[in-house]
Every structure is written in structure tokens, then in C-alpha cells.
């Protein structure tokens, strides 16, 4: 038990899970945009993108639990179980830990609604799911402020790369949303495309339904 309760181990576990969760959340967001844009990844059917998005999200949620538990159990800093759910009241770095708590709360709601997706109105699920875009900056702010590793060195480079990836993905999602045609205008276009494709002998490209 020594190795588990020893401050050093929990401290390393907490830092490591924090870093991996940030990377996995980035991956989840990028994959989520690919799901929304109906992109098939090389070598995978299109539902493979959905599976990866779901898997990355769930693994990051599990690691997030480890991250929170290790922070609370670690006696070196004063973070209680209440701080894990209620933001801005922690005994250690209340401001920066608070951002993390907010992110944890949001993540819990996003994961729960996704697990119950089949039983929820689609609109409710979608509204909650869109808060993921707020979740990521909260987590990043928490990592930069409360964390001890992200501010410098090669990890800073990694954080910048993550931020660029999320920014590009968000831009793609927004642009796609703006470009999406009203449903009733899509079918005539699809028919024209299918005619052109058959006339030229090439396979017709998939027409998006969003």
C-alpha cells in the first residue's frame, strides 16, 4: 500500500493522467468533427470513425476519473471530494482547480447523455454534446494554470499542437454547418451528380445528408 498512498506516486499518476486526458480529449474532438462531416478514415468503414470517437471519449472519461481520484486521495494538496464536483472552493489553487471541476462536470453530463442517447430526444443530446467545445478550453485552462508541466519545454509544444488541432477541427465543423444545404434542395443535386457520374463512367461521389 505504501506505493499507492505515497505522495510521489499519486502525484505522478495525477500529472500523467492529466496530460493523457488532454491529448485524448483533443483526439475525441477531432474524431467527433470527422463523424459530423461523415469522413471515412483510411482502411476503415465510415462507422469506424464513430467507434473511434466513442472509444477515445470513453477512455478519456475513465482516465479523467483516475485523474480526479488521485488528486483527491493525495494528501499533499487540500482537494476534497466536494471539490471534485463543486468548482472554485478547493483548498489548493481554487481558481485553476475550479476550471478543471467545471470541465469534469461537463464531461460527466456529455458522457451520461451519450450513453443514454437512444432514450433521449435527439435535440437534447445534441445540445449537451455541443458543450464539448467549451469543455476542451476549460480543461486546457485548468492544465495550464493548475498543472506544473504544460508551461514549458516539449510539453508546451504538444499543448500548442492540440490547440491548433481543436481550432482547425472547430473551423471545419463550423464551415460545414454553414455550407450545409437545406434538406429539400439536396436530392435534385444528387440526381444531377448521379447522371453526370454514370455518363462519364466514374462512380458517383457520396452526397451528404447534412
Amino acid at each position, binding site marked *: 500500500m505504501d506505493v499507492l498512498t505515497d505522495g510521489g506516486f499519486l502525484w505522478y499518476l495525477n500529472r500523467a493522467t492529466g496530460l493523457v486526458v488532454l491529448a485524448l480529449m483533443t483526439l475525441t474532438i477531432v474524431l467527433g468533427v470527422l463523424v459530423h462531416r461523415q469522413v471515412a478514415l483510411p482502411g476503415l468503414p465510415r462507422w469506424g470513425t464513430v467507434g473511434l470517437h466513442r472509444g477515445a471519449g470513453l477512455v478519456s472519461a475513465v482516465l479523467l476519473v483516475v485523474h480526479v481520484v488521485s488528486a483527491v486521495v493525495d494528501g499533499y494538496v487540500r482537494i476534497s471530494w466536494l471539490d471534485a464536483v463543486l468548482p472554485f472552493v478547493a483548498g489548493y489553487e481554487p481558481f485553476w482547480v475550479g476550471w478543471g471541476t467545471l470541465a469534469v462536470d461537463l464531461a460527466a453530463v456529455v458522457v451520461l447523455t451519450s450513453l443514454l442517447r437512444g432514450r433521449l430526444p435527439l435535440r437534447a443530446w445534441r445540445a449537451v454534446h455541443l458543450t464539448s467545445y467549451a469543455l476542451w478550453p476549460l480543461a486546457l485552462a485548468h492544465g495550464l494554470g493548475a498543472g506544473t508541466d504544460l508551461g514549458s519545454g516539449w510539453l508546451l509544444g504538444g499543448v500548442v499542437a492540440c490547440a491548433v488541432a481543436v481550432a482547425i477541427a472547430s473551423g471545419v465543423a463550423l464551415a460545414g454547418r454553414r455550407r450545409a*444545404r*437545406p*434538406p*429539400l*434542395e*439536396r*436530392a*435534385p443535386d*444528387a*440526381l444531377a*451528380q*448521379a*447522371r453526370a*457520374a*454514370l455518363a462519364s*463512367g466514374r462512380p*458517383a461521389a*457520396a*452526397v451528404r*445528408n447534412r
Partner: protein
Amino acid sequence: MTAPPLARGLLGAGDPSLAAHRAAHGPLPAVPDLAVLAGDLTGRGGAGFPVARKLRGVAEAARAAGTPAVVVGNGGEGEPAAAKDAVLLDRSPHLVLDGLALAARAVGADTVVLAAGRRSLPGLQRAVAERGAPVRLVELTDRFLAGEETALVAAVDGGPPLPRGRAVPVWRRGVQGRPTLVHNVETLARLALLARGGPATTSTLVTRHVPGRHGPVVDVAEVPLTARLGDVLALGDAQAVLVGGYHGSWVPARAAAGLTLTRDGLAPAGAALGAGVLAALPADRCGLRETSAVVSYLAAESAGQCGPCLNGLPRAAAGLELLARPGPHPPGLLADVHRWAGLVVGRGACAHPDGSVRLVTSALRVFADELAAHAAGRCTATSHAPFLPVPAGAR
């Protein structure tokens, strides 16, 4: 369009006024249990769902939800080949309004809506004003899917007329989220006749298309369900009959003549009465060309929401357009059309893909000889004048 003068029938004598309606049918009697009275009456919008089950389902759902139900009369006849609902609304609006009143009482509805195309509305406004009935009239767009149950509910709620899927059926959550009874207008008119003791379940309205000297002749008639198709429709030199409309199927004329119009009578030929369209394709036309025009129209009318429909129907339509032209076709094109048609079945929020490819596969079956002729570079048709009506732009 002409209709036989059946004074006690659904189409009346041609005078749509309340006075003529009362003179012909008398007052609307009180009905203790409409579901019992409906008996084995089936819906006449296309799906043929038992009316009694729908009535009981909505009444129960409304009781369970503790909210009054909504009743919607569906006069949305998006099908270009069908005219029976418009003719019925034109000639006997008060039978439909009677049916709405009966249905509203039976399911405990406090809101009554009648949805119809633009051309039907002036007459309906007059009829509603004549009786002072609290019926809300809703104008539907001319799209093929405007009368699809869930698209209709969306339109009544003021949104775009898009099918929304059947995960939660409209009899549980429809207009304003309340249990909603949607009945085709002919079904409602039949309920009004049943309430007066008429034998309303044994006949049906059909829209007939037969060749005439100056193009196709279209009329609407009330015919017994047990009648043979050959007696209902002048087959003449027809090569095939389109049964059910644009979501229906082709049946070779020889096989069609002896069929009766009941569900069991049409089933052996792989057909159903659907929207009540019967069209006798004359021998001098190309069945593939006619079907291709219809299918291209259907593909363009997809609501664009479900991937299989949005991607499958245009491919099948474009493939059929090539097959409808004589000349060498790309190798494997026929197999591709079959494959695309098979891929969309059961994968839409509504039955549009299923119905559209039903027409495609029946055409490929019934006009197999013509397919072979086209592959050999010739078409057996001697006239290319359009027979089936397709809105401008699709042909």
C-alpha cells in the same frame, strides 16, 4: 375530370353545398363506438392500416397522456397521378368534415385540422364557414412527400414538411406533441357514410388513367373492391397496368385483368391499391421510359434527410434513365440498378425509398422484353408522348 353521378356515394351529385349534403345524406347520427362501427374498414391513404385500431390507439394514448388528442384530415395528395382526394374534397367536403367530427368525438380531440393542397382550400373554406365548424385548414405544399404522415404533422406544426421517422409514432406524439389521429380524407368520408348505415367499406375511390384520342384521359370513380380490374379500367390494348401509383407496381395487362382490388386480390400480383391509382399503359409506349421519368421525379422529391435515399434513389434513377434509352449500356448497369434499389429498402425515415424502388423492380420485371430490346439497340414503342403525369422539369 368526370365522375359518375352517385347521389348516395362518396362523390355526390356534384353540388358541394351543405344543403345538398343534408338532402342527400340526412343529419349525422350519434355513434356510440366509432371503432366498432369502423369494423374492417382500412385507411385509404396508401398504407391500408385498419381504421378501428388507429381510433382505439389514439384514444388510449390520449387517456394515458391526460391530454386531448388532435385529429388531422389528410388531403395532402402529393402524388401527381392521384386525384381522388382532391375530387372528393371538391365534391363532398361535408362528408369529410362529418368524418372529422365523428373521429374527434371518438378519440376525445379538442383540435381538428384539415390539411390539403392549395387548389382544394377555397372550397373547404366555404364548407367550413357554412357549418361554422371549428376546423383549422392547413395548406400543404405540392411536394410528393407532403402527405406522408410525419411530414404532414411537421407542416401542421408550422415547420418544413419533412418526414421525421417513426421512432415515436404520431398516434402517441404528433401535432403539438399530442396523440394525433391522421386519417386520409376518403377514410373520413367513409366513416361519415358508415355512421348513416351505408355499406362504405366495400368500395373505394380510384384515379384512372386510360389512353384517349388527345392524350391520357384521367377520371376519378367509386368502384367496388370486389370488382375485377378489367371491369374497372378500360384495358383496351394496354400492355401493363400501374397499380397503386408511383409507390406501386406494374402488372402485365393479361395478369391484371382478372385481379380484384382487395388486398388479398392484388397481393398475388405483388401489388397493392396504395393511393388508388390505376393506369393502363397503352401498347405503343415504352414502359421503361415512362417508369424512368417517374423514378427521376421521385428521386428528386427525396426529402434529402436519409443517406440511403439521398444517394440510392438518384443512382437508381440515373441508371434507369440509361436503360430506358436504346443502345449499348455500360456492362453491369442492370445489376447495379438492382443493387442500388435493394440497398435502400427499409432504410429511410419514411417509406419513400421502399415505394420508389418497388416501382423500379416491378418495371425491370414486367418490361424485361423491352430491356432486352433496348440492349439490342431498339425500342418497341411507336409513341414517345408522355402518358404518366410528371411535374415539369423531371421529364
